[in-house]
């Protein structure tokens, strides 16, 4: 990137040299023309020289835009990549206090406007210093006294710039804030538009948007009034400079103190001295958004990542490369190396117990504890259900175990490996998780099912079993494109129940994970589908540890043990005697069993 900016600067300097040559040649040509009696043939060679300079200038100009673009591409790409990687790395706990809309605008549109800054502003900033110096040298050579006039005008530039710059900087930052707030405001209003319409409040929100935008206009204009002042001062100094140079030159010409040719050259060059400074300043205002976005990305990158050292006792070589930065992971070979290093096969044997000791979680702004010194031990292969009233901290318990929610006290361990010390990637690879509101991603069903796999599987026998278990087979059989069906953004083309089943299948396909973690996996499912799913799950997760949050009795039949969570504490811990050895699946052909399974309905 530095090289490309240097190239841009070199091109800029070349252009300035061409300008100087043009000015000198023009001055000489006009001087000849003013006294035609001496013969004007001489100007032909000078006109040819002017043509040659023009061609060189054109060539340099043609190269300047691509050089800037290449530099901009590198910086923008890097920032976007790192920014998103950091956001994803900070995880859900950090995101809870952030606005998705604002982050997306910063990383998207905000960084897009960085192109101007890198491509144009930076090289021009350097040229704003180098080019005037060069041109002043040329003017000094042509006419001493003019140099002094130009220098005087030039000296005023920094003075005014500092005065004006200080004035505007803060307000421009405010404007950016107003704009991003508006971005989040819009997303919020639109996502809730159905609700607003249902309650006849959309009109009001409409006015609100008009009002917010009007607010932005007023803020922006008050900033611009001052921001453009700097351009006004610069331009006026340039024109006044020209006037101040022209008039004394004219008077001195009358007295014969200066030649016509150098006088005209100086006249051509004077505005050029100011031009690079003017350009740099105008680009600065154009690229301020990109700069603000960059600052925001830096802020996002700020909370330093914990480089969790791998300390796996008794299980060496679990993961050495997964601490590699996300960028390095982008290469295909290292993706594979992660998969082979995350204990993919060995973990399928859940030989280690999952234990929580005195685990407490508090949310930053909320006063109370979400989890209050939880002690819990799950033996390998044991199945545990967590029940309790809404808001008791059940989901938090699961996300804490998964390492998605940081805890303030206690310890969590799988066997001898403590979560706090384990490599995060390796730790998460031990769990097959279905969140309460699972998210699907734009792409095919296949892509979503194998979200946790670096590559698609060669054999699909197991896949078919899992699809059957998640009650997805007939849904997929009914789709014209089958597993290649695009699910749309966020899986919008599927119903909530279908999304949930895809998420269950997605978790079951994580064969490497010894612990299955399900957060209300059947909340969107009807009873018959739930019963069918429960029966299938019973078989599919045989031998694996199960950590389940549910409100549904049918699901409780799956577990050996039930823990009641109330106000962040375990209030009851009982073994479950209702679990039957093996449930006969309700897809036994009986009418009721298939009735509500929707997809199983006879045509």
């Amino acid at each position, binding site marked *: 990137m530095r090289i490309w900016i240097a190239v841009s600067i070199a091109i800029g300097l070349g252009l300035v040299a061409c300008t100087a040559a043009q000015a000198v040649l023009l001055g000489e040509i006009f001087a000849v023309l003013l006294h035609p009696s001496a013969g004007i043939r001489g100007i032909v060679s000078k*006109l040819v020289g002017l043509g040659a300079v023009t061609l060189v200038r054109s060539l340099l100009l043609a190269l*300047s835009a691509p050089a800037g673009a290449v530099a901009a591409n590198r910086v923008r790409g890097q920032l976007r990549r790192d920014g998103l990687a950091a*956001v994803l790395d900070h995880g859900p706990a950090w995101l809870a206090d952030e606005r998705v809309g604002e982050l997306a605008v910063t990383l998207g549109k905000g960084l897009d406007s960085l192109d101007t800054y890198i491509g144009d502003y930076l090289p021009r900033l350097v040229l704003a210093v180098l080019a005037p110096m060069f041109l002043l040298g040329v003017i000094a050579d042509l006419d001493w006294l003019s140099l002094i006039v130009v220098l005087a005008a030039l000296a005023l530039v920094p003075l005014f710039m500092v005065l004006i710059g200080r004035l505007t900087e803060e307000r421009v930052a405010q404007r950016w804030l107003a704009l991003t707030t508006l971005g989040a405001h819009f997303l919020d209003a639109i996502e809730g538009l159905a609700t607003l319409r249902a309650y006849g409040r959309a009109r009001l929100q*409409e006015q609100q948007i008009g009002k917010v935008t009007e607010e932005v206009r007023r803020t922006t*204009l008050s900033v611009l009034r001052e921001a453009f002042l700097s351009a006004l001062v610069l*331009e006026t100094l340039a024109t006044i400079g020209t006037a101040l140079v022209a008039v004394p030159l004219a008077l001195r010409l009358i007295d014969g103190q200066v030649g016509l040719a150098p006088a005209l050259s100086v006249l051509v060059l004077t505005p050029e001295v100011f031009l690079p400074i003017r350009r740099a300043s105008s680009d600065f205002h154009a690229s301020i958004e990109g700069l603000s976005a960059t600052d925001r990305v830096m802020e996002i990158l700020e909370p330093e990542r914990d480089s969790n050292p791998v300390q796996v006792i008794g299980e060496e070589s679990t993961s050495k490369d997964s601490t590699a930065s996300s960028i390095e992971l982008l290469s295909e070979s290292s993706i594979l190396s992660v998969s082979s290093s995350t204990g993919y096969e060995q973990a399928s044997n859940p030989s280690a117990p999952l234990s929580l000791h005195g685990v407490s979680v508090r949310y930053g702004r909320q006063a109370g504890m979400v989890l209050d010194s939880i002690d819990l031990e799950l033996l390998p292969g044991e199945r545990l259900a967590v029940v309790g009233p809404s808001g008791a901290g059940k989901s938090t318990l699961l996300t804490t175990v998964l390492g998605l929610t940081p805890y303030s006290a206690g310890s969590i361990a799988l066997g001898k490996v403590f979560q706090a010390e384990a490599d995060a990637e390796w730790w998460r690879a031990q769990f097959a998780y279905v969140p309460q509101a699972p998210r699907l991603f734009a792409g095919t069903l296949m892509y979503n099912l194998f979200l946790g796999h670096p590559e698609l599987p060669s054999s699909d026998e197991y896949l078919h079993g899992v699809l059957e278990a998640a009650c997805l087979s007939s849904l997929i059989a009914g789709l014209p494109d089958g597993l290649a069906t695009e699910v749309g953004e966020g899986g919008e083309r599927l119903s909530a129940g279908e999304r949930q089943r895809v998420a269950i299948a997605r978790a079951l396909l994580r064969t490497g994970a010894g612990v299955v973690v399900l957060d209300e996996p059947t909340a969107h*499912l009807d009873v018959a589908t739930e019963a069918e799913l429960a029966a299938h799950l019973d078989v599919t997760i045989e031998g694996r540890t199960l950590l389940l949050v549910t409100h549904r009795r049918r699901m409780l039949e799956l577990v050996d043990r039930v823990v009641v969570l109330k106000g962040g504490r375990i209030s009851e811990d009982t073994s479950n005697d209702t679990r039957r050895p093996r449930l006969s699946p309700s897809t036994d052909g009986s009418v*009721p069993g298939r009735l509500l*399974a929707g997809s199983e309905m006879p045509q």
Partner: protein
Amino acid sequence: MSYRLSSELSNESVPDHGRILVGTARPESRRVLLAVLVGSVGQLSALGLMATSAWLITKSSLRPPVLALSVAIGAVQFFALARGAGRYGERLAGHDVALRILARLRVWVFRRLEHLVPGGLTGVGSGDILARLVSDVDATQDLVVRNVIPLAVGGITMIGAVLFTMLVLPPAGVVLAGGLFLAGVVIPATARVVGRSFSRSLSANRGRLANQLVEAIEGVADLISFGAVVKVLARLERAEQAISRIVRNSAVVSGVANGLGATVTGMTTIAVVAVGAVAVGDHRLSGVAVATLGFVSLAAFEAIAVLPESFARIDQALGALKRVEGLAQMRPPVVDPLHPDRLMPGPAVLALHRATVSYRSAVSPAIEGVDLELAPGKRVALVGPSGAGKTTITLVLLRFIELDAGSITLDDVDCRRIAADEVRSKVAWAPQEPHVFATTVAANLRLARPDASDADLVRILSSLGLSRWLAALPRGLDTMLGQNGATISGGERKRLGLARALLAERPIVVLDEPTAHLDDVTECQVRQAVLGATTGQSLLWVTHRLVGLEDFDEVVLLDRGRVIERGSFTSLLSRDGAFAKLLAASLPNGHLDGRGH
């Protein structure tokens, strides 16, 4: 639940390109004109400054009396000041008018969406809508500041420079006109055509990238726990590379255009001087005049130097504008009648008759031949598996989507004769996934009834078992809820939606899966609270759970869009039909049936 595909174009005349912008800009046309005028004064002053300076200097070298120069000296100083002032005025006036137009356009966009969400918009995720509103609408602001005004000012300046040159030496005027036309119009316009595909795909790719960003950030928990972050970053990398490629290629095009422009600029000035030199040789023109012309030529090209950028950006802006205007072509799923019937205040009977809805993307209808009557005091439970069409029925009742066959009536009046907002004013609705706005708890609830007192809010929240949650909030009802209610649990979000519906006190209450995220105890409490609070209202309780149905006057069993059984809970049980079998299957062991009352 899936929404109707709406990319279909309406039968009404498709608006011409830019019509929306012109429409929103028309009230501001005087301000646009003012900006152009002030800008032109500035640019013509720049021409004047160079012309008078050149004249002054060359004339001086002939050593005239100083007095003969005084007018020129005054003019030089005047132009020097007018130049900056004009430019400053143009910028301010231009941005002011652009932002005014922007405000109108944003409201227009929201107004369009208002008729399209939900039910009229798919294939367009929230991320894309965000891109549309923020990026595209902002780009149309550029259209005014960076395209319309500079092009107009540039045109006027070109004409001014050519006219002046024509007066002094007609052939030079012709040469200058040709050069300016080439450098200011032909080359930039050609570059625009060549670069058009780039800017078009740049907008599209940036939109796609914005979608991916939103999706990735919202799905962060899933991505992290499945170790799929790398995958998503790789996806982003591909999108980023596509953008980089377009940026680079379009820079090459504009680079070539810039180079050609510079060639034309230089060669035209040389030609003007050459033509002038010939005239001087023939003693038709003074050297002073030629020098003046040469400087005017230089200044004229300087003045039009912004035009290539204006042309280059025009497609970017137009592409964004086109996407914004695409909203105009989407047909609202429900269209209000021209002369709607007025409704009587008070209770009403909302009913479906043989109602059928087919989504374009689906093979079979979402609902088919559904009859349903919601009368005052009547409680109906709509039961069925996921995908049975339950949510579709709620959207129909709220007039968010139109029927393809059958009818929906309010007090026996066809709803097609009533404004949809009027129908909705009778219905309180809690959707399956209620949206929690990024504002206070109180404001989130009051949108259903603005005049509700704090006591009302607290009463309703505690009836839904949220009193402890409320007490734990740092600022009670004034606590801000995060984006999408991220700081509250699924069950709490659900109940905030219910609280809205109960607070609205409307004759008809439609609740979509009101207890999906709740545990048994809370579920029972919530059901009782809802039943208690809606006495005398008509209630539609949509659920896939067979719990507490004995409290309802009618249970409607829906499967694959059709009503397969209906009646009171007891009559359904005694009928021993589909419902009874279903109930038996869901409670395999008698002792599990702990919910019956």
